[in-house]
């Protein structure tokens, strides 16, 4: 299997505070993996998310996405990779409040150079996440769980290889949280997506095949899950 993401000696130091958020980190993520990145707040987990999602650049080292060395690319080229290869899911859902579910799902298409049949696809994706018939609802008319489903559909619209979820259940009750995680598992299993979940919640992390624990900007543990029963959830 090829490396979808590879970090080589990545360091991130915030100049103002001189905080070393990531300290010479190297690891790679294979295609169709399901990874949980864990760590307490201040561990460098958020920085890791930003680096993996190409929202931020490291001070040192290289980030490869699909074997493309992104650290040398222009902002526009990086934006295009985010658009095509990465689907973001946020803790606060981050939907556009004035757009209906369908238009929210289509939002990434606004920034694509060549538009395709995105409306049809958005309909399908809303059905896939169990929101068929709710296309015209605005985020305010949807529950938290439903909003997160819209966000998942939005993340899928450009058929990215990587799903990057930042505390995806953080704003949801545990029951809804489980449903959302089931959705991510489904994407991983049936749609062969590489799923990366950043969380501090071990319960959420237990869905993943592989755990990466970060502490003080360094990888503390990186191990494949031995307990296979967790994966049966």
């Amino acid at each position: 299997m090829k490396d979808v993401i590879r970090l080589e000696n990545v360091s991130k130091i915030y100049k103002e505070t001189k905080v070393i958020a990531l300290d010479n980190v190297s690891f790679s993520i294979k295609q169709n993996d399901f990874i949980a990145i864990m760590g307490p707040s201040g561990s460098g987990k958020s920085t890791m998310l930003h680096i993996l999602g190409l929202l931020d650049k490291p001070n040192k080292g290289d980030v490869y996405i699909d074997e493309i060395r992104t650290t040398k690319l222009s902002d526009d080229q990086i934006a295009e990779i985010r658009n095509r290869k990465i689907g973001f899911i946020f803790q606060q859902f981050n939907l556009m409040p004035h757009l209906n579910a369908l238009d929210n799902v289509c939002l990434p298409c606004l920034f694509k150079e060549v538009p395709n049949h995105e409306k049809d696809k958005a309909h399908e994706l809303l059905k896939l996440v169990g929101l068929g018939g709710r296309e015209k609802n605005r985020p305010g008319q949807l529950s938290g769980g439903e909003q997160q489903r819209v966000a998942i559909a939005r993340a899928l619209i450009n058929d990215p290889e990587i799903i990057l979820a930042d505390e995806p259940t953080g704003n949801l009750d545990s029951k809804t949280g489980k449903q959302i995680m089931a959705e991510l598992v489904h994407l991983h299993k049936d749609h062969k997506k590489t799923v990366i979940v950043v969380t501090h919640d071990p319960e959420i992390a237990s869905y993943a095949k592989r755990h990466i624990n970060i502490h003080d900007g360094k990888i503390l543990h990186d191990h494949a899950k031995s307990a296979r029963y967790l994966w049966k959830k």
Partner: protein
Amino acid sequence: MRMQLFKFAFNNLKARPMRSWLTIIGVIIGIAAVVTFMLLGQGLEASIQEQFQKIGVNKIIITPGKGAAGMFGGGIGADMFYEHDLDVIKTARGVEKVGGMGYKLAKVEFRNEIEYTFVIGMPEELTIEEYGFSIEHGRDFTKSDKYKAQVGYDIYNAKFFDKPVKVGNEILIQGKEFEVVGSIEKVGNHQDDSQVYIPYSIYQEVFDEEGYSMIIAKTPEDADTQEIADAINEKLRKDRNLKRGNEDFSVQTFEQMMETFSTILGIVQLVVVGIATISLIVGGVGIMNTMYTSVLERTRQIGVMKAIGAKDRHILTIFVFEAGIIGLVGGAIGVILGTLAGKAVELAATFAGYEILKIGLNLRVTLIGLLFAFFIGVISGFAPARQAARLNPVEALRYE
């Protein structure tokens, strides 16, 4: 993709209707003011030109006193011309006919109703048509006419005295009886349309005046009036032993008068439109303010858009579109309201007797208004849009 971004920008504005409309109103006021004043200026200039054209271009006006002051103040307490001057002007090359005339504010009475208006002593050498007017009812003066008068359109149509003054009626000018023999066609402004015209020799008797407060020289059709005006100037100067530049009289062609009017009007228009532009700038500042607020408020959304693949120029385009739409909508409504306001001024002027303003939808002014509004929008929106485009996605996403 452009179209989709445009739709997206439009929806963003629709999501905040109150603020969008308040900002648009700022633009509307500015554009409406600019459009109204431009239309008024153009309408006034066009009507003045039309009036000059009506009165005739083949004429030269000679007044005592200097320059433009002579044009406005000639004959009122100023120096006078005499018979001799008429003879001198006649000798100038190209002059067809010469006639002296004068005008005074006088008491005019009709059926015990007293009003004050200008009484014009008409040059007897020129027919009414040659002077530039047309007879509507009755007839022109004849050589043998003594105490006969022509009346303006408004006097004939009961818009001056309570009752209409018809051909054959008697009126009193400065207490002397005159028979009305004709009426003049509508000129278009109340002042000119409520004047009374009498032969100059009678004018001299009634007002006890020796000379002329104005001389009209008629030139042939298609003649170069400026050349003839120069010839008249030279003859008069030589006769009076004056050096060039020291004239105590002024010779003006209608073209010159038209130019003088246009220049004055142009300056007035520039000042007024300039003031109106200030309100448009205020409207632009309003757009800028709204857009900066919007950028701040939507920082997180901008972060999200960047995360899901928006390039800097996409964000820039969205915000510039929003500002441009505010400008365009404000411009469109402003042009409509400005045109209506201009039309209202025209109606008010007509109601007051000045049927000289012709104002309507003007393509040039409309285009200027729309483009101006659009550019004000885009220019005002550019700085906030650039700030939005340059936001760091990580910081924007973290923004509460």
